Structures are given as structure tokens and as C-alpha cells.
């Protein structure tokens, strides 16, 4: 089956791009404020964004960039699959939650606890867009193009799948990045073929030089 990458995006703490083109994000001179500045730039009204942990913010923003101006969303549909990958699961939020369990300073917060699962980011994207299809999260030691290719390829073996949103989304210690691909069956003139080589190249272009 011919599969194409119809759109891709990359975001880290300082930089965002869509289809390899850097976005101009104003009002974000300081590190740590970039994701909020990007949210403002997108001009979407979604206050839940501010309750999310960084992992979910990254996934949410990337999916907004992917589906910006798209007609594919907000109507309940089952033909899209969301697949996410990362290295560190939800460890960033895990450590935050663990810090609220100290003897003598025991104040576990349910709103933090719910983010101690990595697949919440996939749920956030599904909720925002009304995607009722499969959501899956896999953990791997490092960005693994073969694994991403394989999971997307298998998702399309179900003939009801019309698109797959695949992402590497990581937020822990020095890493903070999301690389998201929209993969579809339909072919266009300028479409990028979906292959291990392309996934690797697109990621490296952004991750290494972004």
C-alpha cells in the first residue's frame, strides 16, 4: 500500500517547524516559555492546555500544527489512529508526584497523578479532535524509525484506517521534543513517501539542526 507523510512537525523548547519550515514565534525570549508562546500564536481557545504536563503540551501543540486548517477533526470519527513513542514514559511528572509524598509534607494531587501515565498525551489529542480510533503508547530506549514504521504500517492493515498520527514525544531532564507525522493513504504530487529512510531523515533534520 502506498503511504505518504502528508504533514510533519517538530517542536522543542526553543523552536517549532512545520514541514521543515521554521515558525516565527514571538514573545518567547526565555527558555521555558516557548510552548506557551506557541500556544498563543496558534490562537486556539483551549484552557485545558494550561493544566497539562509538558509531555501533553508537546503532543497537543504538535497535533494542532498538524491539523491546523484541516477538515479532519472535531466530528467524532473512528478511522484515525494515534501512536506515540518515547524513552522516559511520564518520569518527569512521576518525579513531581513523588516529591508530594514526603513524610511530613504529604499532599498528593490527583490532577498531577493522572499525568503519571504517558498515554494521557494520546488521550488529550483524541479528546481535542474527537478521534475515537485506537490510541497506543510504546516505550523504546531511543527514537526508533523502524519501530515507528512498523507500527504505522500495521495500523493501515486495518482497511478502516484512513490516517495515522505517529509521534515521538519526550520530556525528561535535558530532552523536550516532539516529532509528529501525519501518515495517509492518499497520494499527492508533493507527498513524501512514508519509509524508514524518510522518517529518519526528517527527524534528523529537525532534531539535530533545529
Amino acid at each position, binding site marked *: 500500500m502506498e503511504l505518504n507523510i502528508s504533514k510533519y512537525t517538530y517542536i522543542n523548547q526553543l523552536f517549532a517547524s512545520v514541514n521543515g519550515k521554521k515558525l516565527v514565534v514571538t514573545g518567547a525570549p526565555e527558555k521555558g516559555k516557548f510552548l506557551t508562546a506557541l500556544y498563543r500564536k496558534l490562537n486556539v481557545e483551549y484552557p485545558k492546555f494550561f493544566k497539562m504536563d509538558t509531555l501533553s503540551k508537546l503532543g497537543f501543540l504538535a497535533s494542532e500544527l498538524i491539523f491546523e486548517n484541516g477538515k479532519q477533526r472535531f466530528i*467524532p470519527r*473512528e478511522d484515525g489512529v*494515534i501512536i506515540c513513542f518515547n*524513552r*522516559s*514514559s511520564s*518520569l518527569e511528572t*512521576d*518525579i513531581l*508526584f*513523588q516529591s508530594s*509524598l514526603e*513524610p511530613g509534607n*504529604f499532599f*498528593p*494531587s*490527583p490532577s498531577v*497523578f*493522572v499525568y*503519571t*501515565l*504517558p*498515554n*494521557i498525551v*494520546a*488521550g*488529550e489529542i*483524541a*479528546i481535542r*479532535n*474527537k*478521534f*475515537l*480510533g*485506537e*490510541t*497506543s*503508547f*510504546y*516505550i*523504546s*530506549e531511543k527514537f526508533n524509525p523502524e519501530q515507528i514504521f*512498523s507500527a504505522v504500517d*500495521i495500523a493501515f*492493515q486495518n482497511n478502516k484506517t484512513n490516517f495515522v498520527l505517529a509521534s515521538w514525544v519526550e520530556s525528561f531532564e535535558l530532552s523536550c521534543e516532539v516529532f509528529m507525522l501525519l501518515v495517509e493513504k492518499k497520494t499527492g504530487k508533493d507527498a513524501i513517501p512514508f519509509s524508514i529512510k524518510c522518517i529518519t531523515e526528517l527527524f534528523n533534520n529537525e532534531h539535530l539542526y533545529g
Partner: protein
Amino acid sequence: MIIRIGDNIISSLGFTTKENYQAVKSGQTGLRFYGSCLDLPEPLRASFIDKERLNDCFAAICKHPGNYTPLEQAAILSASQAAEEFGIDLSDPRVLFFFSSTKGNVYLLNEKESGFSRNHIYLWHTARVVAGYFHNPNTPVVVSNACISGAAAQIAALRELEAGRGDYAVVTGVDLLSKFVASGFQSLKALSTEVCRPFDVARSGLNLGEAAATLIYKRAPAGDKEDIVLLQGAIRNDANHISGPSKTGEGSFLALKAILENTAAAGDLAFINAHGTATSYNDRMESIAITRAGLNTAPVNSLKGYFGHTLGAAGVLESIISMQALRDGVVLPAYGFENGEQEYPLKVARTISPAEKSHFVKTLSGFGGCNAALLFKKKNGAEY
């Protein structure tokens, strides 16, 4: 379709599938009340693996048990015992590993001097330690889909084997209890200090439990032995709320619909083994989903009253117990259930009863709005 060729459960009710199944069948529960445990400020009702027995059993198969955390020991012991039934060599490159755990060694975050390297906090590392124990050369697949992980790992195994990427799949689910997990569920007010009562009108919350469970599958065709196969699996999202189930049971309903499409299995269900956590919202949601799927004439049970919610192990453990029941020709009762709700009545099993039919459905739901459904079948004569 993939074929079950081995399994094991390590839980509060025993260290083999047989011990666990017999305990369930005779109506035992592993859930106990603890006035204080895990350094929690509130009491807890939960089920724990006997750590001394785990130590002894693991020391009998491993010369350096100190290199492994209790969670890794339980997973390795479980996979090792599951492999014995079919005599499969887990170092074979045709064997793929699938690992399901919600929190892995999260307890290490609380320990300043655990003696374990920092890598043990990563799920991919824990999975690698387990597969590495058996000298398996493949990188294990690690799923992390909240409480449906044990089903998601079986679905991943089904897909990989059907795609011909391996001949055997070892699917291990494991979670142990920690202050982290228990206080999180306590903060959500999701726990009951009584034994949980799935689907009962008076249910008041869930109990947590520890387990490691392993299923080993083989790619078709089936052998001559009596076999149970995993036919279908589906995951669907509610697209509704990250921590609350859908009021219409959307994702669970769609997952059920997906696994029963193009089959006559809906009319041949011995039972549905539901998630049935005994929280008010979950069980209501499942009742709606099962009713919407037109399956409310099938017997329904939940195993949470025997084991508690074993999180990443639940999908594997509950599939194994249900396979045993299907093979045994019985529907197991939902421990703790007395009176159902009026609004979406289900045929929840109160007592053990014979089951003539050949299929069962396993459902699970989890945070992030995810829902899974699996369809299993027992072999009848020379089928497939």
C-alpha cells in the same frame, strides 16, 4: 489468530496458573486489610505477592538474584514458568517479548540508595532486563497504555505474529504496589477499604493488587493439543475525558463492535470478563457499552474481587483465568456481587455455573480514555 501455548500467574493467590485458578474457583480472595502499609497515612485493602516466596523461588532459578528488583524477579519467574509448559527456549530469536507495566520500578524514585543503577527506572530497561535474563536477542516491545496495557500487549503480539515477525510471543504484565501508586489512587478517592464489589449497586471503589502474569502465544497453525486462541483485539478511545469514563461507553462499545464484526461469535459467548473495577463510573460505563453492543444477554463477571486491580498485569492475568474457565466449561462468579443496577441490567454471575459456549470476551478500560476488547475461542475438534 494466535494460539496460547503457556501461561503463568504470580499473585497473592499463588505462584502458578493452577494455584490461582483453583483459589478463584473455590472462592478465595487475596485482598486483605492493612491498617498501615507502604508508609501511607490511610489504611489500605490490597493484595500482595508473598515476597519471601518470590525470593526463594527466584533464588532457585537465578544465581545472582540481587541484580534484579522484586518487580523484575516476578516478571522473570513468571515468564520462566510459562515457558515450561511447552518447553520453549526463550533465547530463540523467533521468540518476541512484549512487556506491560504501568509503573515498573517507580518505587526506586523514593529510594536514595537502592543499589540499583538509575536505568532501572526506565520501562524499556526493565523489559530488557527481563528479556536479557533469557538471552533473547530481540528488543522487547513495551506498551504503556495505562490499565489496558495487558490487553494492548496481547494485541501487539497478535499483530506482530500475524505479520510474520516472529513465531512465538511472550507477553508479560507486571505491577507491584508502592506508596506512589496507592497514594495516587487514594488522592482520586477511587479506593474502597472493603473488598470491592464489581457491578454491585452498593459498590464503593476499587482495590489495588500485585501480580506478574505471562501468556505465551504461538503463530498459527494450531497443534493437536486442546488450544485456546486469541482471535481479535481492538483498542478505541472515548475522546471524552483523561481520567473519567465516557457516559455513553463510547470507546468500550466501539472496541466490542470492532472485535465482533464479521463473526458470529456474539451469539456464542460463554461469558464476558469485564474490567469491572467496582468504581461507580467504570462499572456503569461498561454496563452501557455491553448493552449498546447487544451483549447484555451474555453472562458477565469481573475478577477484581479476587485479585484487586493489578494494573499492567490485569489484562494478562484476567485473560489467563478466563481461558482456564472457558476450558473448564464454567462461568466464574464476580466475587462481591450481590445486586445489580436497575438501569442497565447485566447478567452478572453470582455463582459458578456451566458454560457450554466456545468464546469469551475480555474488556479493559483505562486513563487516557482508552478501552480494549479481546475475543478468545477454544478449539472444537478439528477447527481452524
